[in-house]
């Protein structure tokens, strides 16, 4: 049952930040899988089900996506823009997880449409706050 639930997809290239995220996620006791992807391009492949992610059984559309802004190949904002363009991903909740608290980053993310914005490092409480609402929704 738990395996089949669509996971949380986190796009994060920094090892330390990934460590901090996983630690906080573990402490949050959210009953959902956290799937980590290291760059923007891979994130798009996952979401569109191409390449290594063709199997939707193994790689279902995530419940929520946690998106860093500074990513190799495709930046977080570029990934966000593509998500908002794809009809199949229209309703995918996106939460930005960034080291920047700069107003311009907030503004650009809001322009494209995000459901949350967390400044690193994330805490267990923060994660529950932004993710929990989407888990309670029925499919």
């Amino acid at each position, binding site marked *: 049952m738990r395996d089949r639930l669509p996971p949380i997809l986190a796009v994060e290239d*920094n090892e330390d*930040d990934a460590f*901090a995220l996983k630690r906080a996620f573990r402490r949050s006791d959210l009953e959902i899988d956290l799937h980590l992807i290291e760059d923007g391009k891979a994130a798009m492949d996952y979401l569109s089900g191409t390449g290594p992610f063709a199997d939707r059984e193994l790689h279902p559309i995530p419940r929520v996506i946690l998106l860093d802004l*500074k990513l190799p190949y495709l930046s977080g904002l570029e990934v966000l823009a593509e998500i908002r363009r794809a009809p199949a991903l229209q309703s995918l909740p996106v939460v930005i997880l*960034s080291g*920047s*608290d700069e107003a311009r980053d907030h503004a650009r993310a809001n322009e494209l449409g995000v459901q949350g914005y967390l400044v*690193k490092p994330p805490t267990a409480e923060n994660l529950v706050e932004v993710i929990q609402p989407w888990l309670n929704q029925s499919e």
Partner: protein
Amino acid sequence: MAADIHKGEVSVGHGLGRPGEHTALFYDSDPQLSRAVARFAGEGLGAGVTVCLIARNHLFNSVCTILGENGFNVDSLLKRRRLRYFDVTVWKDAILQPGIDPIEWFVGQLALALEGTEAEVPRLYGELSSSLIALGNSDLAMRIEEAGNDYLVEHEAAFLCAYPLTMLDHEISRDDLHLLCQKHSCILGAESKAVVSDELRSILELRQRADSLEAEVASHRITERNLRDQTRALRILQRIAADLARQNDPEQAVTLVIEGGLELTGASFGAFFHDAQEGDRIYTLYTLAGVPPEAFSQFPMPRRTALFAPTFEEQQVVRIADVGEDPRHGQNAPYNGLPPGHLPVRSYLAVPVKTRTGKVFGSLLFGHGDPDVFNESAEEMAISLADHAALALENANLTAALQREVISLQSAQTKSRRLASIVHSSEDAIISKDLDGNIRTWNRGAELIFGYAAEEIIGSPITRLFPPHLLPEEDAIMARIRSGQQVEHYETVRMRKDGTPVDISLSISPVLDENGKVVGAAKIGRDISERKRQEAELQRANLELRRIRDELELRVEERTASLREAISQVEEFSYTVSHDLRAPLRATSVYCDVLLNEHRTLIERDADALRCVQRIADSTARLDQMIRDVLAFGRVSKNEISMSPVNLDSLITDIISHSPNLQSPSATVTVHPLGEVLGHAPSLTQVLSNLLNNAVKFMPEGQSPVVAIWADRREDRVRIWVKDNGIGIAPEHHSRLFGIFERIHPKLPYEGSGVGLAIVRRAAERMGGAVGVESDGQHGSQFWVELATV
């Protein structure tokens, strides 16, 4: 008509009909009497006065016949009561009726007979007393005559009484005859073949001698008076003439003449009217004397009316005894007489002022409110005065013309001398040449500019001054001059004696002879070399200026571009800082947290190790705070801010609710009502949260922070105070307190980057406000920020 009556044998012309005259006429036959009465009546009717006859019927009939023969319409005269007839027989019978007061009756009848003649001098002929004497009632006749005289005292009238010479023979006593004669002012005897009694003849002779003597005396008196008047007038005239001879000012002369005229003629006012020409229009002007000018100023000029025209147009003398009675007066609209408000004029005398040669200067008019003021002598005086006036005016005009001539000659001379000296001393070259192009005059300016002396160049062709390539200019210039045109400010080049070129500005005008024919040209040449040089220099300077300006603009552009690049680099840097530089700090912090939590039991074994990890965690946190503060400071400086009213009370409440360290039990913060200010809400939040956090941060060991916030309003400013009970700041540190990275208490264990107050100051200043602090360094601090009210 009156002339025919004059043929009568009775000489009644003398004195008959004059006002107040009461004449007794002795006659010897009725036809003779009829003619005398007809003449008396005819003259009166001819003069337009009423004539009243108290006579016998047959006498009346003969008088009417004579009048009719002389052209009078007797019926009409009787109908209009110009001629009135009363039968003397009826009167005689009535007056003798018993019970009647005869004099009272007579006076009443007389008044009725002459009724309505008060405004004239009526004539009355009566033979009532004669018929009473015939009845032997001389006494009553005397009383009747006496009553007649009484009437004449009161009224203007002329009476004629007739007595038959036969009466003298037996009907009247000698004494009564004398008495009767005394009742009359004039006794006339008819020249007749009939026998006139010696008595009457002697009376008549005596009477006539007395009359003529009296008349002679009176005439002597008149002559004497006239002579006296004339002597006086002549003296006045002489004096005026002498005054006039000395007078050169025509206006003054006119005033003298009018004033003299008043004195000479006895007029109450006088005026001199004359025409003045200005361009094509002719105005009538006048000078007044005897009345203030205001008395006439409101009236129009006298027009060419029947009254004025003879004087103004035909230069005739007009003398009128009473304007009101004169037929020429009052014929012209709109006034038909004097304009309302005009001074009363009855006596009028007007004489033209003209020279013997006939030159007319104007007219002298004199007037008086009473009639009959101007007699013949006054007229003569006015005429001679006008002669003198004409002479004086002519003299004055001649003198004035002479003076103008002299002045114009003098000014022409002065002008000519001045022009010559201007030409001589001018720095410009002033040269004249004839139509062949040869130089005729050469001034000092020309010598200085071209280097030739006058004597070496006069007579040479003007082209000697031309550089060879400009020789064709001369033909063009001369063509213009020959056609009478000018050349103005023509800039060209000429050559000096030494062959060097000189820039000049030329103005050339044709010179005309007295017939207007072009005979040469006058040139004014100004040396403009210096101006040309300056112009060239100015142009060079302008070019240089433009080059420098362009260069500067380029440099500014480059600077701006590099500045923009620098700014964007700084922005990029701060972005990088916030993203990348802080990433390792975050990691450090996370790993410290892992050690302190998940591996605590392990590191607690070594107290040193635990302390080290804790210090790493602290330092990391502080470095992160510093970085965040620096970014915040950058944002304060960089961002555009817009001002609007901000409610401070809700803003403070918001800050406190987000900051646990400002809430109980950590601190006691008392907020007094603050109201609104004009500011930028995000900046204000930074300012006040920094001040509040500082207020609770620097506390002495073991004390709990107590903070108060309140606002002072003065005029258009609000000062917000934040008072704490912290350690305070010594006054010597106040000045550098608000600088970036300034920490007043570096040794003390207080967190802080040294950026907070710099942000406060920068934010306040960007909102047009100011910040400050009051503290003695021992008893807490009082920070303030001052902003504009809404």
